[in-house]
């Protein structure tokens, strides 16, 4: 018997149809879509207790209500392309859920229907890592995608999502991808010897030339977080001990511009921490940093006790605001007075508001996710 056999019942069932038809109009069901104009917050949750089933939650930035989700599979990575109304999710599938042939792809989601509209096969070497922003990036013109690989030997896959052409650039000893802000065919990476490698790709995706900077940081004494932000023309990195390194990644070789120490003398023991430990307002040149006290070796992922607002242009600490239990922070791309954060302790996503003095306070939250680590508000 197939379900088609139910056809024999059709006449009978019409007879049995509930009456009171005059006053009652049966409802219809349908599928929702997300308005193009809605400002979005994406929360990437690898769902560690069930890693095969990671997801990216889509929230309305105005009230943090949940609007939908994207399948992120096993240790998936996401990057939004608001200009194209797409969200890219790089992930791994196995033939039998947890075993069998490994297939790595970039799933291309429409950001209104949340359906997969394309799939780009990639090398089965992508880093199956926590979804740090710098592990999956777009070129400044949005034409290329950059994916961090690790086998554990490291390289970067450069992918054209339209032509599906790809190039693998070896990047031994280096990790994290930082696309040049003005040169679409260029990106940099942080290396364990304290240098920065900068890659310039040929337009035909045939090869990438690598140039190494001088030593820009000390990966032993004061490592840089691999999460980075940028202002309008330079990248901003943050060290475990609370130094901001402003660097230009625009040329063939990276160069340091300046180093700023955000920790005043009266705040010994405070340090930044988390998976996405700071956000930068590119225009105002203000950094918002997740800070904890009683720092020690191994505390660099600790949840926050405060958010510090640091004025990069004027090199001064603007404000310290209480903000417990946050490990990831991002600034809204459309409203520089709004931050979004992940609170993994209470399993909440929070919305924070910045006042004119740089003070930060919570304005909304939603209970969501299990082990979320990356939050983005790109449109």
């Amino acid at each position, binding site marked *: *018997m*197939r379900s088609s056999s139910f056809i024999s019942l059709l006449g009978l069932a019409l007879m049995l149809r509930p009456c009171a038809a005059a006053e009652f109009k049966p*409802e219809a069901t349908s599928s929702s879509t997300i308005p193009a104009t809605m400002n979005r917050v994406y929360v990437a949750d690898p769902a560690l207790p069930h890693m095969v089933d990671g997801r990216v939650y889509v929230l309305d930035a105005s009230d943090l209500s949940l609007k939908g989700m994207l399948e992120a599979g096993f240790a998936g990575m996401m990057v939004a392309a608001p200009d194209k109304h797409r969200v890219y999710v790089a992930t791994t599938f196995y033939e039998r859920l947890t075993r069998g042939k490994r297939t790595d792809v970039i799933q291309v989601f429409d950001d209104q229907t949340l359906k997969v509209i394309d799939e780009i096969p990639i090398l089965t070497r992508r880093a199956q890592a926590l979804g740090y922003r710098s592990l999956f990036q777009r070129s400044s013109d949005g034409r290329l995608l950059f994916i961090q690989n690790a086998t554990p030997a490291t390289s970067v896959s450069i992918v054209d999502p339209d032509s599906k052409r790809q190039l693998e650039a070896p990047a031994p000893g280096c990790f994290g991808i930082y696309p040049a802000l003005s040169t679409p065919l260029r990106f940099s990476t942080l290396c364990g010897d304290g240098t920065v490698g900068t890659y310039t790709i040929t337009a035909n995706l045939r090869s990438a030339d690598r140039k190494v900077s001088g030593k820009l940081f000390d990966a032993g004494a004061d490592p840089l977080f691999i999460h980075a932000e940028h202002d309008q023309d330079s990248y901003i990195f943050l060290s475990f001990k609370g130094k901001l390194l402003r660097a230009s990644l625009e040329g063939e070789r990276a160069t340091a511009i300046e180093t700023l120490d955000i920790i005043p003398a009266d705040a010994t023991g405070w340090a930044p921490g988390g998976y996405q430990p700071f956000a930068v307002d590119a225009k105002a040149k203000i950094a918002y940093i997740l800070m904890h006290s009683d720092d020690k070796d191994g505390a660099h992922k600790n949840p926050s006790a405060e958010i510090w607002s640091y004025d990069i242009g004027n090199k001064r600490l603007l404000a310290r605001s209480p903000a417990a239990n946050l490990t990831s922070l991002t600034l809204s791309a459309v409203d520089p007075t709004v931050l979004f954060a992940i609170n993994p302790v209470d399993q909440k996503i929070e919305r924070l508001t910045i006042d004119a003095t740089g003070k930060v306070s919570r304005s909304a939250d939603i209970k969501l996710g299990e082990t979320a680590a990356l939050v983005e508000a790109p449109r």
Partner: protein
Amino acid sequence: MSDIIIDRLMAAFDRAAELAFRRSAQSIGRRSALSGIGKLLVGGALLPVLPFDRSGQAHAQGASKPDANEASCDYWRYCALDGFLCSCCGGSVSSCPPGAEPSKVTWVGTCHNPVDGKDYLVSYNDCCGKTTCGRCLCNGNVGERPGYRMGVHNDINWCMANTQSMYHCTVSVLVGVADKK
């Protein structure tokens, strides 16, 4: 009350099933004819299957009259709903979240609306093709029966007849007023 409707539907279901058993060899390929006329008889209940161009409308209607309780398992429509509420997952009480499609077949509950005092037939459509939502798990079982009365059974994935059969969440759609006789 509604038991009478359910019983009659069930008896019809059983008869159809018996028929189908006898001629199961010839029964393939008729589904398209059935859905072509805009109705699907499913698990013993008749559900309107509306063209998708009405979907937006239905959703907009729902959004304009928000119900304060629709995120709670105690909301009256959920009396036989076993699953995740789509209203917690980006959809509404009757609309699937983005990317998920309503199930083609459903189970049916009969729930009492305390506001107008009437009993309604509720179609519990699973929303299909996206990973399980995981929020607002409810487990109502009024009128629920084991799988030998499939049309009122809720311990099964009602996305089973969809091309993409992954379960995401469940909506509650009013499809009739129950016969009081």
